[in-house]
């Protein structure tokens, strides 16, 4: 009888243990349920989200137009041992994938375990291959970067390597953002419509004047956004190889040039800011200016005395040199430095050349630099500095990312000087060397430039860098257009001239006439009516 309570206690203990185990099991199941239903991230479970994270983000232009995208592709492999009929399998796979049938037959017959059939299959071809129902097929998922616009904007956008990592251009400069941005598209500053117009007109002009190279930039002078950037010769990024005549060199950022007379913009801005000139004062330009052992000439005669404003409009080196002498090298140097012309631009684009400045900066250097010789800058650096002069006088830093607000840069010149400079630029187009850049209704202002290229220790008279920088609409400037041609050849239409006013200026005018409506720039009806009246006397 004594053993009974002990047995009962044992049973009770077992029951308690079983109850405890059951409760623990239910608690575990409940905890797991709560974890799955409440705390687990559904995206983490989905393989789709994983795939999205694995590929590079799209690059789009400012309006959402696709510039670069990772396309899902598959590499198709086969195990020939599993095929019933090697010849028939090779024929079917060749038909669908485009692989060479003879190669497939021979590799299948070699009885290898694993044979690559075709790389980079698009999803529809992959689906078609799966529908064949052949045994022994396997797919390896991959991505391939695709650039729908091809050559257009190739230099700025750049490329990726076989591992889908950026190796040049914005693909490299924005690599981290593109790879780790969670798949959200990266909006660039480009407007693909403007980019196309720029490329097209530059290519036409390059063909017309048989240039060695050419390029152009469209820049928003308030936000610093690069709306378009073209550099010719270009290349086809989808080919992953260069064709004869192609070049991956971005001449707008990677190369530095002595740009010639378009640098007079800075000489005049400095003189106006320092009040060393008045626009109506006469400047003697009748005779070459002797400076030590150097003699400064003009491209063409302008008479004895012309006003300072016409020195700018007619692009007189002799007149500009005298104006530069008034400021001197000690003031010129910090002024150009304040415009960012002494350092490589810091943008999202990694390929950016540093300017070349003279080691000693005396009177002779101050004079030659005033008309754009003796200092070499890259075109984008020049465009940014010129934008700072005309946008009201605040420093602009170019960017390749879409911006919503204007930059609040440091002041480099007063608003009054900036306004006067705009008037001078307009004078160049109405009465000076840049008349061919006019686009009726869009109030274009600008400056021509023609620089002789350095060659064998001196300058070559027949190898020119011809350029034009235009700003529109000049009374409320929004955009800057820069066009440059490397070694243009004069032709019948330019009466043999290869200067900026005859080669780059007309191209800039055509570009402005085409892009202004796209950019929402309203035409001046007064100017249009004047044009109509002049055309219908």
């Amino acid at each position, binding site marked *: 009888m004594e053993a009974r309570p002990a047995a009962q206690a044992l049973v009770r203990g077992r029951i308690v243990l079983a109850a405890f185990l059951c409760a623990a099991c239910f608690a575990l199941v409940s905890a797991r349920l709560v974890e799955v239903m409440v705390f687990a991230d559904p995206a983490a479970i*989905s393989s789709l989200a994983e795939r999205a994270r694995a590929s590079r983000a799209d690059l789009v232009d400012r309006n959402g137009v696709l510039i670069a995208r990772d396309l899902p592709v598959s590499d198709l492999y086969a195990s020939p041992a599993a095929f019933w009929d090697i010849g028939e399998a090779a024929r079917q796979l060749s038909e669908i994938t485009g692989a060479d049938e003879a190669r497939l037959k021979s590799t299948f017959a070699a009885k290898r375990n694993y044979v690559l059939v075709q790389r980079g299959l698009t999803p529809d071809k992959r689906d078609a291959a799966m529908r064949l129902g052949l045994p022994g097929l396997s797919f390896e998922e991959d991505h391939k970067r695709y650039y729908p616009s091809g050559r257009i904007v190739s230099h700025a956008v750049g490329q990726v390597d076989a591992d889908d990592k950026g190796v040049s251009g914005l693909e490299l400069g924005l690599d981290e953002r593109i790879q780790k941005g969670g798949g959200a598209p990266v909006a660039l500053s480009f407007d*693909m419509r403007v980019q196309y117009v720029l490329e097209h007109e530059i290519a036409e002009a390059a063909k017309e004047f048989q240039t060695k190279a050419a390029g152009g930039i469209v820049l928003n002078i308030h936000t610093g956004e690069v709306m378009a950037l073209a550099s010719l010769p270009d290349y086809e990024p989808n080919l992953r190889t260069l064709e004869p005549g192609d070049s991956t060199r971005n001449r707008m950022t990677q190369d530095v040039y002595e740009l010639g007379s378009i640098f007079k913009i800075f000489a005049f801005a400095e003189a106006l800011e320092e009040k060393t000139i008045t626009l109506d004062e006469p400047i003697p330009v009748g005779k070459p200016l002797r400076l030590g052992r150097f003699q400064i000439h003009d491209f063409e005669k302008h008479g004895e005395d012309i006003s300072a404003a016409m020195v700018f409009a007619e692009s007189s080196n002799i007149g500009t040199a005298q104006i530069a002498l008034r400021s001197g090298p000690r003031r010129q140097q910090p002024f150009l430095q304040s415009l960012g012309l002494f350092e490589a631009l810091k943008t999202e684009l990694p390929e950016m050349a540093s300017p070349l400045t003279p080691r000693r900066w005396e009177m002779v250097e101050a004079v030659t630099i005033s008309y754009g010789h003796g200092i070499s800058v890259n075109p984008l650096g020049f465009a940014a500095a010129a934008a700072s002069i005309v946008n009201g006088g605040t420093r602009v830093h170019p960017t390749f990312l879409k911006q919503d607000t204007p930059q609040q840069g440091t002041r480099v010149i007063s608003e009054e000087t900036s306004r006067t400079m705009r008037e001078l630029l307009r004078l160049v187009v109405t009465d000076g060397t840049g008349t061919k850049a006019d686009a009726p209704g*869009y109030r274009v202002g600008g400056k021509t430039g023609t620089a002789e290229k350095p060659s064998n220790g001196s300058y070559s008279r027949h190898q020119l860098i011809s350029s034009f920088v235009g700003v529109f609409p000049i009374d409320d400037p929004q955009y800057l257009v820069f066009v440059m041609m490397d070694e243009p050849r004069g032709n019948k239409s330019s009466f043999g001239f290869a200067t900026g006013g005859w080669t780059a200026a007309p191209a800039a005018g055509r570009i402005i006439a085409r892009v202004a409506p796209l950019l929402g720039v309203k035409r001046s009806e007064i100017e249009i009516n004047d044009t109509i009246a002049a055309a219908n006397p």
Partner: protein
Amino acid sequence: MIRTLNIAFIALTGLVCLGLYHIAEEARVTSADLRTTERSIQFESDAITVLGAEWAKVTQPARIQALASRHLDLSDAPAVELSSLTQLPPKNPPLVPEGAFRNANTVVPAPQAVPTPAETPTDAVFAALKTGT
């Protein structure tokens, strides 16, 4: 009493086991469905990705311009031939006041003297715009 409770608990345990099995089976089927759906979404998503790229390729301005110049009888108009809404002529005033139609006794008045379109300065501009230079 204890026996009844034991039987009840065993029955309950059996029911719970059945329920658990049912849920596990449902979860397995749902999981298989999910995988199928995900594969289908993945395929559609890939197709959309490819189609998006294809759309960007076929709508690029260079192609549109080439097609337009090949198939359309259009030419680039000089800027002076373009106009804006503000340069359009004003709408002609109605010949009869609007309220007059509602009154059956009203005799239609003589048309008011309105300048013909070609006489208005804006229209002259518009005409000039249309002819171009």
